[in-house]
C-alpha cells in the first residue's frame, strides 16, 4: 500500500487534496517518467477578471497605495528658509530625513529600528487575525502585479481571449496588442523608478532636471534599475516572486494558528462536487451533494494559479478573488454565497459535527501583538515628542591628559561638539561645575563686546569648539575629578549637560 493510499484510507484527510494529488501523480507520470526533471518551466497563468467585494477592496487599496507612492514627493511642507520644503525627503548629502513635522538626524536611526519592530509585529498581527492580508492587498509585489494584470487584460483581453490568441500564429494584431502591453508596462515601470528618486531630492526641481537632462547620473541610474525591476517583477515574474523568492510565505506559515481566518474552501459544504443536474438527482434520492459545481472559476481568477479547494496552500496569497468568483457563481445558481470565505478549519470541523462556530479574534496571541505594537509605538511617540533640540558631546584630550602652566596652574583641554537641531541659529553659553576656581578658554572664539563668551551654532548644524579649562585653586586637585559641563541656550534657557573628568598629576 503506498503512502497515498494510506492517507486516502485514513478518514479525516481532505478529500480534495487526495484528488489533487492523484491528478498530479498522473500528470507527472505522463510527463516525466521515472527520474523526474531537474528544472520545470512555470505554468503560464491567465487570471480572469472578476467583480466583487474583495476585488473592490483591492482596487481601493491599489489606488491609495500607488497614489501615495507616486504623489507624496510633491507634497510641500514649510520649514522655513533654511530647510527643504518637501514633506517627505531623504536627504543623503545633508544626512537628514524629513517626514512632515519630524526631522531625523543620522544618530537617531534607532527610530528605524522601532519602525521595523512595528512593521514586523504589524505583519504578525495581520496574520494572526486574517492570514496574509499583507500579501493579498498591500504588498508592492501584489499591487504592481495587479496593475500589470489590468493593463494586460486591457491590451490583450480577458483570460479566454488572451489564451486563445496566444495559441494562434502571430498576426499584426497580436504584435500590436503585445507591443502595446509591454509599452504600457514599461511606462508604469519607468514612472515607478521616477517617483522613487523624487524621495531623495527636491521633487519639482529634480523633475525639471530630469526633463532637461541635467539630473545627476545616480538619478538616471536608479530610474533605470527600478524600471527594470518593476517591469521584470510585476510583468514577468509575478507569482514566481511569491512562490520562490519571498521569505514571507514561509514565515507566515510558521506563525499562523488554528483561529486565524484564512481564505478557505468550505469543503463541508462543497463536497462532493457535482453538476447542478447531478446534485438534483443525488438530493432527490436522498444522497448528499455538495454546492461546488466544479466550474473552476475560483482557479481561473487566481493570480497565483492555486486551486484553493485543495486546502491551505503556500502559493495562495489570500487575495480573496476566488471568494468573489465563487460568490458570483453561487448568486447565479441562487445558492447562498460564501462557499469560499475567510474561515478556519476548526469551524469546518465544528459545522460537520454540528457544534457552533467560533471566531476568536481576541486571543492571547493577538493581544500580545497589539500590546507590543502599543508599547513600541508609545515609546517612539514619547521619545519623539520629548527629544531635545540641543545636545553636547565632549572628548577629553588624550595627549597630554593635563598641562602644567608656568604659574603652576593645571589645565585640561576638551573638544566639545554642540548640536543645534532647531531650524534657527542659536547662541549657547558653556559652563563647567565640579572644581572650585576655573576659567574656560575657547580656541578661535573671541569674546563679544559685552565680554560674554557665546557660541553660535547655525540652524540645523553642529559646531565643534576646543575648550580649555584651567584650575587655579591653590590646593592640587585629585588625579581625577568629575566635572559637569552645562550648555545653556541663552534665549530659551534649554540645557544640555554632559559629565567628563578633570585630570591632574
Amino acid at each position, binding site marked *: 500500500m*503506498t*503512502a*497515498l493510499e494510506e*492517507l*486516502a484510507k485514513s478518514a479525516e*484527510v481532505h478529500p480534495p*487534496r*487526495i484528488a*489533487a*494529488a492523484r*491528478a*498530479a*501523480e498522473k500528470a*507527472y*507520470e505522463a510527463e*516525466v517518467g*521515472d*527520474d*523526474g*526533471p*531537474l*528544472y*520545470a*518551466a*512555470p505554468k503560464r497563468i491567465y487570471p480572469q477578471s472578476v467583480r466583487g467585494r474583495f476585488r473592490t477592496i483591492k482596487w481601493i487599496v491599489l489606488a491609495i497605495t500607488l497614489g501615495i507612492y507616486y504623489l507624496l514627493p510633491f507634497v510641500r511642507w514649510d520649514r522655513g528658509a533654511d530647510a527643504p520644503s518637501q514633506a517627505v525627503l531623504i536627504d543623503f548629502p545633508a544626512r537628514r530625513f524629513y517626514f512632515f513635522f519630524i526631522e531625523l538626524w543620522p544618530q537617531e536611526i534607532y527610530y528605524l529600528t522601532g519602525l521595523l519592530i512595528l512593521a514586523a509585529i504589524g505583519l504578525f498581527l495581520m496574520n494572526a487575525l486574517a492570514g496574509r492580508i499583507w500579501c493579498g492587498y498591500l504588498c508592492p509585489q501584489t499591487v504592481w502585479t495587479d496593475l500589470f494584470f489590468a493593463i494586460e487584460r486591457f491590451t490583450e483581453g480577458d483570460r479566454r481571449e488572451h489564451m486563445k490568441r496566444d495559441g494562434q500564429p502571430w498576426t499584426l494584431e497580436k504584435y500590436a496588442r503585445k507591443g502595446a502591453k509591454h509599452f504600457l508596462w514599461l511606462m508604469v515601470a519607468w514612472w515607478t523608478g521616477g517617483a522613487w528618486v523624487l524621495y531623495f531630492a527636491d521633487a519639482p526641481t529634480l523633475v525639471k532636471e530630469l526633463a532637461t537632462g541635467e539630473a545627476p547620473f545616480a538619478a538616471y541610474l536608479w530610474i533605470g534599475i527600478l524600471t527594470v525591476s518593476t517591469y521584470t517583477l510585476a510583468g514577468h*515574474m509575478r507569482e*514566481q516572486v511569491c*512562490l*520562490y523568492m519571498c521569505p514571507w510565505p514561509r514565515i507566515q506559515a510558521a506563525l499562523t494558528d488554528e483561529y486565524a481566518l484564512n481564505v478557505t474552501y468550505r469543503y463541508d459544504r462543497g463536497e462532493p462536487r457535482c453538476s447542478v443536474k447531478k446534485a438534483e438527482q443525488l438530493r432527490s434520492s436522498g444522497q448528499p451533494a455538495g454546492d461546488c459545481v466544479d466550474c473552476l472559476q475560483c482557479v481561473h481568477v487566481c493570480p497565483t494559479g492555486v486551486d484553493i479547494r*485543495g486546502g491551505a496552500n503556500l502559493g495562495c496569497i489570500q487575495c480573496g478573488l476566488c471568494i468573489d468568483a465563487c460568490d458570483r457563481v453561487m448568486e447565479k445558481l441562487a445558492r447562498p454565497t460564501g462557499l469560499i470565505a475567510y474561515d478556519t478549519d476548526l469551524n469546518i470541523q465544528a459545522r460537520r459535527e454540528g457544534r457552533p462556530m467560533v471566531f476568536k479574534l481576541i486571543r492571547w496571541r493577538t493581544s500580545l501583538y497589539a500590546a507590543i505594537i502599543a508599547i513600541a509605538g508609545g515609546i517612539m511617540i514619547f521619545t519623539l515628542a520629548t527629544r531635545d533640540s540641543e545636545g553636547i558631546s565632549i572628548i577629553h*584630550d*588624550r*595627549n*597630554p*591628559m593635563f*598641562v*602644567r*602652566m*608656568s*604659574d*603652576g596652574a593645571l*589645565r585640561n*583641554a576638551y573638544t566639545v561638539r554642540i548640536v543645534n537641531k532647531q531650524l534657527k541659529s542659536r547662541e549657547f553659553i558653556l559652563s563647567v561645575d565640579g572644581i572650585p576656581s576655573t576659567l574656560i*578658554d575657547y*580656541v*578661535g572664539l573671541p569674546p563679544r563686546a559685552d565680554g560674554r563668551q557665546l557660541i553660535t551654532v547655525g540652524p540645523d548644524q553642529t559646531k565643534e569648539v*576646543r575648550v*580649555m579649562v584651567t584650575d587655579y585653586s591653590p590646593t592640587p586637585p585629585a588625579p581625577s575629578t568629575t566635572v559637569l559641563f552645562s550648555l545653556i541656550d541663552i534665549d530659551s534657557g534649554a540645557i544640555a549637560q554632559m559629565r567628563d573628568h578633570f585630570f591632574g598629576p
Partner: protein
Amino acid sequence: MADEHKDIDAVTGTATTGHDWDGIRELNTPLPRWWLWTFYITIVWAIGYWVVYPAWPLLTGSTEGVTAWHARSAVVTDLAELKTQRGPMMDKLSSAALSEIAGSPQLLDFARAQGRVAFADNCAPCHGAGGGGTKGYPNLNDDDWLWGGKLDDIVQTLRFGIRSGHDKARQGNMPPFAGVIKPNEISAVADFARSLSGLPPEKGADLALGKKVFADNCAVCHGPEGKGNRELGSPNLTDKIWLYGSDKATIEQGILNGRGGVMPNWEGRLSEPVIKALAVYVYTFGGGEK
C-alpha cells in the same frame, strides 16, 4: 529503484525522491527554469567583468580590460581631485598673514584640520600625538616658550628649526661645565636653580655659593634673576616647567654635560601652507601668546 520516484506526496502533490527516513520523505521539487537562467546570467556577468576590468593574470601582469582600471591610479586621481578641491583654501592659506588665519573662523578651521594631519605625520614622534611633549621635547600645550610663543615665533622655529644646521636656525646652547666649575659648585648651583622656582632646597644646600656661581657662569644666558632669554633659547628657571626634569640629579647632569636638543628645519620639506597650518595648529593647543 525506478518505482520509488513515482511516490507522490499527498499533501503537496509533488514527487518524492523515494528516500524515507522514519516516515519522513524528501520531496523532489524541480527548480523553476528561470532560476537556471539567473545562473547563466551570472556567468555572462562574469565574462562582462573580464572585458571591463583587469582580470586574468598573465606572466608579467594581467589582462587590462577596456577600462584599464587600477586601484593605484584611482587613488592618484582621487588625491588629485582632492587637491583641486582644496586648492582655493590652500591658496588663501599661502597668501594670508598668520594673524588673519587665526582671526578668521573659516580659515582657522581649515588650518587646524590641515595642521592636525601634518602634526601627526611629522611632529608627533617627538612632541607626542597631542603635543604633550616628553623629557627633552617641549610640551606645546603650556605657556612656557623657549623661543617665543607668538605665531611668528612659532612659524620661524618650524621653518628653520633649532640647532638644525640650517643657516637661519635658532642657535644657542647650554655648554658643558664639567671641568670648568668644581663639583661642589655644581651641586650648589643646582640647588640654587631649584630654589629659583620655589622648590625646597636640600638639607645643607649652600645657596650663597650657588648664587655666586650662578652670577659668574649662568646669568649671562639665563639672566641675573634666572628668567631666561628667548634670543638664546635659554629657559626661564623661575617657572614651574622643567624641560628635562626638576630633580637635582637631572639638573646637575645638565650642568655637567650641557644640553642641546635639536629640532629639524621644515622649510623645503613641507609646503608653505602646511607650515603655516602647523604653526596655527600648535598655537591653538592653548599656550599661544598674543
